[in-house]
């Protein structure tokens, strides 16, 4: 009995210590990010978020352009990855007729998730950009050119290509997480729905998806987190131009790309501080996304339970 109590104590100390360590790491991380950013924070303040200037020669910096680029490319990625990812997840989880395909497909998806982003970037740089410039972009311009989104001269580099690369990179996360969530829907619910005369499609639409939507929302937000922070593959295809353009064919810039590009040769406190400030902005966006995710999940799960 005595030994058991002391064993409990040891375990408690270890787990408290581990929890404290996590908090300590988070605090140290935030301090290490904010302190070097201070020269820029004191100089530009909140105006940093609304300024479009990024001029290392004159030491004037603002984050609006890369914030815009980050949000646009991530949105494109989610718009493409969400329907495809959900469809693939439903197929993998629900369609029993092709169960032979399930194993190889799951394996391929995990393989796709395991490809390092720099390899995807190389592929995009050498194969995808010429393809976009010569085939995809002209086609979009021909069919949807009345929208400002598809105007301008396609160079192959820019928001659309970067968004497509991000979509490819977040698809495995989207599929794998959604598939697991859909599989976790209790069998009784499916059977009850089918017994009441619902078709497979009706069962998916009105039973499985409402039940799984919390988890699917989580999958979307985790995908968004990946898309927001992805650096190297985006840097290779975004075009690295400090401009805000309505055209998706135009070159742009994202927050991680600016940091990766300019960090090595950034001299001077304000310049280096501005790059750290961009890091702070990126972390803030990630926090906002996470808080939104929590709120959504909280709201969905309370109303979802009431409905169930």
């Amino acid at each position, binding site marked *: 009995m005595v030994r058991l109590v002391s064993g409990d104590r040891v375990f408690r100390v270890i787990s408290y210590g581990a929890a404290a360590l996590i908090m300590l790491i988070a605090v140290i991380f935030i301090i290490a990010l904010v302190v070097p950013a201070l020269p820029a924070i004191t100089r530009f303040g909140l105006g940093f978020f609304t300024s479009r200037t990024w001029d290392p020669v004159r030491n004037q910096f603002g984050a609006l352009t890369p914030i815009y680029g980050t949000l646009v490319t991530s949105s494109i990625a989610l718009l493409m990855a969400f329907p495809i990812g959900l469809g693939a997840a439903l197929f993998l989880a629900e369609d029993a007729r092709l169960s032979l395909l399930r194993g190889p497909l799951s394996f391929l998806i995990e393989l796709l998730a395991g490809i390092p982003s720099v390899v995807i970037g190389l592929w995009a*740089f050498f194969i995808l950009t010429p393809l976009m410039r010569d085939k995809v972009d002209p086609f979009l311009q021909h069919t949807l050119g009345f929208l400002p989104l598809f105007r301008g001269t396609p160079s192959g580099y820019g928001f659309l290509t970067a968004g497509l690369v991000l979509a490819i990179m977040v698809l495995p996360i989207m599929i794998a997480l959604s598939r697991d969530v859909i599989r976790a829907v209790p069998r009784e619910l499916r059977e009850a729905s089918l017994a009441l005369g619902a078709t497979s499609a009706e069962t998916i639409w009105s039973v499985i998806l409402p039940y799984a939507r919390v988890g699917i929302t989580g999958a979307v937000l985790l995908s968004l987190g990946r898309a927001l922070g992805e650096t190297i593959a985006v840097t290779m295809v975004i075009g690295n131009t400090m401009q805000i353009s309505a055209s998706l064919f135009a070159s742009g810039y994202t927050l991680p790309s600016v940091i990766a590009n300019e960090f090595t*040769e950034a*001299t001077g406190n304000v310049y280096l501080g501005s790059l750290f400030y961009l890091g702070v902005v990126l972390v803030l966006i990630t926090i906002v996304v996470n808080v939104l995710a929590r709120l959504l999940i909280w709201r969905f799960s309370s109303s979802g339970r009431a409905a169930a």
Partner: protein
Amino acid sequence: MKSVFVAAFVGAAMLLAACGGNSTANNPTTGGSGPPTPPGASLTGAGATFPAPFYDAARFAYNKLFSQVTVNYVAVGSGAGITQLTKKLVDFGASDVPMNASELTSAGGSDKVVQIASTLGTESLAYNLSGVSNGQLKLTPKTIAGIFLGTIKNWNDPALAADNSGVTLPNQAISVVHRSDGSGTTYIFTDYLSTVSADWKSKVGKGKSVSWPVGQGAKGNEAVATTIKQTPGAIGYVELAYVIQTNMTQASLQNHDGNFVLPSPDGATAAAGQFLAVTPTQFSIVDAPGKTSAPISGFSWLILYKDQGDKTKGTALVDFLDWLLTDGQQYAVNVHYSKLPANIVRDDIISLKTVISGGSTLLNVPAPS
């Protein structure tokens, strides 16, 4: 985060070097007029990526010559190299641009460091135009500035046609490609544009990163070169070495004397030879006079502390640098950089002779005349 990585890298390199260096500490004495025989030591440098191929070739050759000395070089970028030197994490730093006033202050003042020009490079304007072969496109300072300012937008612009009679330039949009990462290459190119164009000087200026009026960015010389090769109608500035190695088509550039020259290592040496002296504050050699001068050229720099704490290490360091400036220059030519002109080598060696430890000069070679 990054500096932690860099420190870890440098630390690992030092450890490796320390393991390898000690076994051959007993050095044979070489007679005659060859390079000075250094004491056994392991040296570490960090900095610019642009001269890294030269430093790598040279340090291996030096180690073959004097196996008791191991030189490590980590190409982390000029800014990081200067920081590493200032924190005394490395024995020498390398930068494409000499230290500026604030960097000198954090290093303890301009009299505390020695900065020497180590090699010379030149830049090309590479392009992708079907039917226009290597050197056929002629560009003047005015048209180069126009293209990069965005006032010349199409290859059939009358300003370009005027300089290129006999060449059919297509009706095609010009795609400007520039470096997206901060780089000495960009510094030299924007220094050139600021020198030849008042518009550029007032609107953009010079720096390792600038606010580009037009074009798209690519990371590193390789990516700029590849983007140009992949994009019809593209033009961009690239280190000559990459242009030669990847067989790109490059423009003939009009130099200060009005001659059109194809950038070459010899052209850079000719440009540098036009200047009586190059100092850490007066180092720009763009748009140099001279018939054969390549207009977009510049030096790369090595930086070390004047007072070396460790006498053995300090002696090995100045001996290595002395060799790098003389016999070692042949390795610059092998990787398409240019030999330093004789007057620059002389000034460098005079600077190296000011490096001391415990009050005495470390480099024992005759003062160059």
